[in-house]
Every structure is written in C-alpha cells, then in structure tokens.
C-alpha cells in the first residue's frame, strides 16, 4: 500500500512539476522574465526530486526487492525538491534566508556532514515545510489583491503540500500509524490543485521561439 501510494505521488509530482516547469520555460523564452526563469528552476527541481524518489521505488520494487527504499535516494529526492520550494519562496522575495555573516555562512553547511541521512531527511522536510508555508501565505495575500481563482488554487496547493510535508515529517514519531498515508494523499491533492490554473493557460495562441520548435 505504501509503495503504491508513494509511486502514485512521485509520478504525479514528476509530471505536474515537469508540466509547470515547461510552461514557465516557454514563458521565459518568450518574454525573458526573471520571475518565469525562477519558476522554471523551481518546478524542474521539484519534478526531478519526485523523479529520483520514483526511480528509487521502482528500482526497489523490480530490481533490489529488499522491502525498503534506499534512504539516501529518498533524502536526495527530498533535497532536490527543497531546492525547488526555495525558488518558489525566493520568487516572493525572501531577502534574509541566508545569514549575512561570512562566518555563519561558512559553518552553516558544516553540520550536514556530521549527521546521518535519516536526520538529513528530517531537516530537508522541515525546511520544505517552512518554504511551502511561506509560499502559500504569500500567494494567499496576492489572492486578496487580484481575486483570481487560479491564485487561490495555487495557494491551496502549496498549503496542502506544506501540510503533507509536515504530516510526513511528524509521522516519523508514529511509524506504523495512518499519518504517513494521509500525508501522501494530501500531497497528491496539493499537486492537483497546483496544476489546475496551469492547465488553463491557452498555449495554442502563443507563437513559440524558433529554437523551441
């Protein structure tokens, strides 16, 4: 059951991330907008992160068959997704994410070499949660300005992903509980909500750059 749900989640995450990433890239190529460039990096990262975990599960399912996905693959996938979530939050003008002091910058990455991959996964999940919550709040605030249905859909999508990430992280405390399955289902709902406004973009009217054809 866990493998099936994880496979569905990661496949949907890969496809939705890829679709939004391609859309953002087309927008960037046609307008040169830096915002669309940041969204391109964000959603290609998210897509790649889900893809890595999906490949991990598929390899486990059909090749290794040990019953558990390699922890480092899961950690790597979540880390790549976190980069994507960072760029979504960064697009909303995070100005003080990194410490300004060179000393703190230099030691900031040091603890990552001292902890196991399981702890790393917890750290990446909690960072993802913060970034997604930030993105959801900022998008919700934008909705109050522009009152567009697409904006509320993206805000709800990011909020559901944040909640799913939080429950996924919290479920480590209760390994055999239903929390983990609930978190996966909530994340799938979040990804679908993210995709709804993107699916309505009328790409047929756009004349693509020659390089894209």
């Amino acid at each position: 059951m866990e493998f099936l749900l994880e496979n569905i989640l990661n496949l949907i995450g890969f496809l939705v991330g890829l679709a939004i990433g391609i859309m953002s890239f087309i927008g960037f190529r046609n307008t040169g907008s830096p915002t669309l460039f940041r969204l391109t990096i964000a959603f290609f990262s998210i897509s790649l992160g889900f893809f890595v975990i999906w490949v991990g599960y598929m390899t486990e399912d059909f090749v290794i068959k040990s019953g558990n996905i390699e922890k480092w693959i899961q950690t790597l996938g979540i880390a790549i997704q976190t980069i994507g979530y960072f760029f979504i939050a960064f697009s909303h003008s995070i100005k003080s994410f990194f410490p300004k002091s060179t000393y703190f910058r230099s030691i900031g990455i040091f603890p990552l070499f001292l902890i196991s991959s399981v702890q790393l996964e917890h750290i990446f999940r909690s960072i993802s949660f913060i970034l997604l919550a930030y993105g959801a709040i900022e998008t919700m605030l934008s909705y109050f300005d522009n009152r567009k249905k697409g904006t509320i859909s993206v805000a709800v999508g990011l909020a559901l992903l944040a909640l799913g990430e939080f429950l996924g992280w919290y479920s480590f405390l209760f390994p055999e509980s239903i929390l983990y399955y609930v978190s996966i289902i909530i994340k799938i709902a979040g990804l679908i909500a993210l995709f709804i406004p993107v699916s309505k973009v009328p790409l047929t009217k756009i004349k693509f750059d020659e390089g894209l054809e």
Partner: protein
Amino acid sequence: MAEYRTHMKIIGDILVTTRDDLQDENGASVTYLIRKANISHSRISRILKTLVSQGLLEQIDSKGSNKYKISQSGREFLQAYYTFTNFADSFGLSI
C-alpha cells in the same frame, strides 16, 4: 500610493501604447510615450533602443524626429506577455 511596476510591465505599457494609442499613423513620439508610460527620458531611451534592436518596435523618421510603432513581433510578444502575466498571477507573482 503609486503602484510599483516591474521592468517587464513598463515594456508592456510602452508596447500597448504603440499598438492602441498612437498619436497619428506615423507612430508615437518619445515625448508622447514618456507621458503615457510615465517614465524618465533617459530610461525610456534605453528601453526604446532595446525594443527596436529586438524588432518589437519599428522606428520611423518623421519630419526630423523619431516615431515608434509596434511591429508584428511586438504584437506576438504582447500576446505572450498577457498569457504569461496571467500564468505568473496564478502564483501570486509579477513577470
């Protein structure tokens, strides 16, 4: 309070003016565009130079002064601009 406009939004405003709000059939003068787009002379000069070099605007010499009209590429750019403005709006962002 004045609304903050991104560089892209200013370009959009200039292209819309040269498409929908021309002074005459020869195009819009720099002074007219400054008033419509509400930006400084030095900034609009740089932007116009870029838009002409990118083929989005046509520069027409009219009675010793330059006038500007939107080109076909400019119209296509505006179409993409509107589409992806809506797309970015969905994420609560401005392009």
